[in-house]
C-alpha cells in the first residue's frame, strides 16, 4: 500500500503532459446537499476568447458552479468536459491549466507579496520563478511594496496580488468569484482591462457576479442563474440591466 501511494504520487507529479483545451462544456450538471438542490441540470458552453458572466443573486449557485469547474467540488450528477476530457480523465495536469480567484483571495497574510508569489510559483513547479514573480508584481503595481507583509495591504492591493497569483501559471480557464466587490472604480477598470487582454489571448474567463452595472462593461455573454437553475443565456450586451434586473431582483426579494 505504501508502494502504491508513492507510485501514484510520483506518477501524478512527474512533469505533467501539457494538457490543454479550447472550450469547457458543462453537461447536465447537478449538485445537491441532501434535500437542497444547489445546482439543477446546468448545461453551458464556454469557448476560448470569451468572457462569460454568471449572473444571479446570492444563493443562486454561482459559487458552487465555479467550485465544480475548479475541480474542488464533485458534481452529484452530470459532468464537465475540458475539451474532450473530464476532470477525472485529465488528472492533476488539469489543475495546471486552471486559475481561481475567490472571495477569500488565498493569500498568506504573514508572508510578503513577493514570498506569496514565489511560493505559488514554486508549488506549481514553474520554470523561471524570479522572472514570473517580478512580472506579476509589476502587473499588480506592487513592486515597491513587494517585501511588505500582505496583512498590511488594502483590499484592492490584495485583490491585484491575488489575481497575479491566479495568473502565474498562465491558466487556460480563469474563474473569478465576485472579483469587483470592494474595488474602487479605478481598480475595477484596471481589472476589466486585464481580463479583456487575457481573453484576447485565448483564455476562457468566467466571472460570477451579482452586480449588473459592472457586468455590462466587461462581459461578452451572460448566463443567468436563479435557485440553482439556468434561466437564460444571452449574447446581447445592451439592455442587460433592463432585461434581467427583474429576474435577478425578483429572486433576491423571495
Amino acid at each position, binding site marked *: *500500500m*505504501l508502494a*502504491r*501511494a*508513492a507510485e*501514484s*504520487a*510520483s506518477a*501524478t*507529479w*512527474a512533469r*505533467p503532459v501539457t494538457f490543454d483545451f479550447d472550450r469547457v462544456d458543462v453537461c447536465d450538471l447537478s449538485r445537491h446537499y441532501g434535500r437542497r438542490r444547489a445546482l439543477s441540470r446546468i448545461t453551458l458552453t464556454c469557448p476560448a476568447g470569451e468572457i462569460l458572466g454568471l449572473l444571479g443573486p446570492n444563493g443562486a449557485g454561482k459559487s458552487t458552479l465555479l467550485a465544480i469547474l*475548479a*475541480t*474542488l*467540488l*464533485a458534481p452529484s450528477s452530470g459532468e464537465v468536459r475540458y475539451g474532450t476530457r473530464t476532470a477525472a480523465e485529465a488528472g*492533476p*495536469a*488539469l*489543475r*495546471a491549466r*486552471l486559475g*481561481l480567484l*475567490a472571495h*477569500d*483571495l*488565498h*493569500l*498568506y*497574510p*504573514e*508572508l510578503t507579496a513577493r*514570498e506569496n508569489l514565489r*511560493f*505559488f510559483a*514554486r*508549488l*506549481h*513547479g514553474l520554470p523561471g520563478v524570479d522572472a514570473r514573480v517580478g512580472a506579476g508584481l509589476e502587473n499588480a503595481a506592487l513592486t515597491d511594496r513587494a517585501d511588505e*507583509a500582505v496583512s498590511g495591504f488594502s483590499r484592492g492591493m490584495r485583490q491585484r496580488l491575488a489575481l497575479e*497569483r491566479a495568473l502565474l501559471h498562465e491558466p487556460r480557464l480563469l474563474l473569478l468569484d465576485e472579483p469587483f466587490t470592494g474595488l474602487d472604480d479605478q481598480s475595477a477598470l484596471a481589472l476589466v482591462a486585464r481580463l479583456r487582454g487575457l481573453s484576447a489571448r485565448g483564455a476562457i474567463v468566467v466571472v460570477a457576479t451579482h452586480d449588473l452595472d459592472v457586468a455590462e462593461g466587461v462581459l461578452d455573454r451572460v448566463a443567468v442563474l436563479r435557485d440553482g437553475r439556468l434561466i437564460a443565456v444571452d449574447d446581447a450586451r445592451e439592455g442587460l440591466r433592463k432585461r434581467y434586473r427583474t429576474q435577478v431582483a425578483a429572486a433576491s426579494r423571495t
Partner: protein
Amino acid sequence: MFLRVAWLIVQKDLTVEVRSRELIYTTAFFAVSCVLVFAFALVREGRPLEDAAAGILWIAIAFAGTLALGRTFERERHTETLRALLLAPASRPAIYVGKLAGILLLMAAVEAVLVPLVALFFDAPVLARPMYLLALLVSGTVGFAAVGTLFAAMLVRARSRDVLLPVLLYPITIPVIIAGVRGTAALFQPEPDVEMARMWIAILGFFDVVFVTLSLWTFEPLMTE
C-alpha cells in the same frame, strides 16, 4: 516532485510561524499549564504517584498536539489557502506530508520544553537512557500527528470541527498513548527496563507505518467534497 512540494510547504509553514510565533508560544504555554494542573492533581504529600511523570508527559503531548493541529488548520481555513494548495497540480499526498512535517517540527519544539519540565517537577531520570526516550517520543509523536493531520485536514470544512477533532482523534490514538506511557514509565524506573521500552518502540513504529500509509491513501478522496 513529491518531496519538493512537501518541502515547500514545510518551509512556508515555518516562515509563517517564525513571523508570528503564535503557535509555538501558545502551544508551549498550554503544555506547561497542562503539566502543572496534572501535577497538582496527582501529587500527594510532595511525592508524585508512581508513573505519574510518564503519564503526564504524554497527556500534555496529546492535548498540546490537538491544540496545535486545530490552530494550524484553522489558519489555513481562514484564508482559504488550503483550497489554493489543492488547486495546484501537486499530488495531494505531498500536501499531507508537508503539513505533517510542519506539525512534527512544532511538536518537537513543544516537547523540547516539556521533557525538561517533567524531569524537573517529577524528578524523572530523563537522561538515564536518552536515545530510547528520544525514539519513543519520535515514534509516538509521528503516530499521533499522522492521524491528527489527516483528521484536522478533513474537518476543515465540517461543522463543529473544534470539538470533533478530539472526539475523533483520541480513540484512534489510544494505542499511541498506552505505548508511549508504558515505554516511558519503563525507562523512568530506577532500573530502566530497556527490553520493555524497545518492545513499545517497535509497536509504535508499526503503528506509524500503518497509519501514515492509510492517511496517504485516504487523503485525496477526503479532500474533494
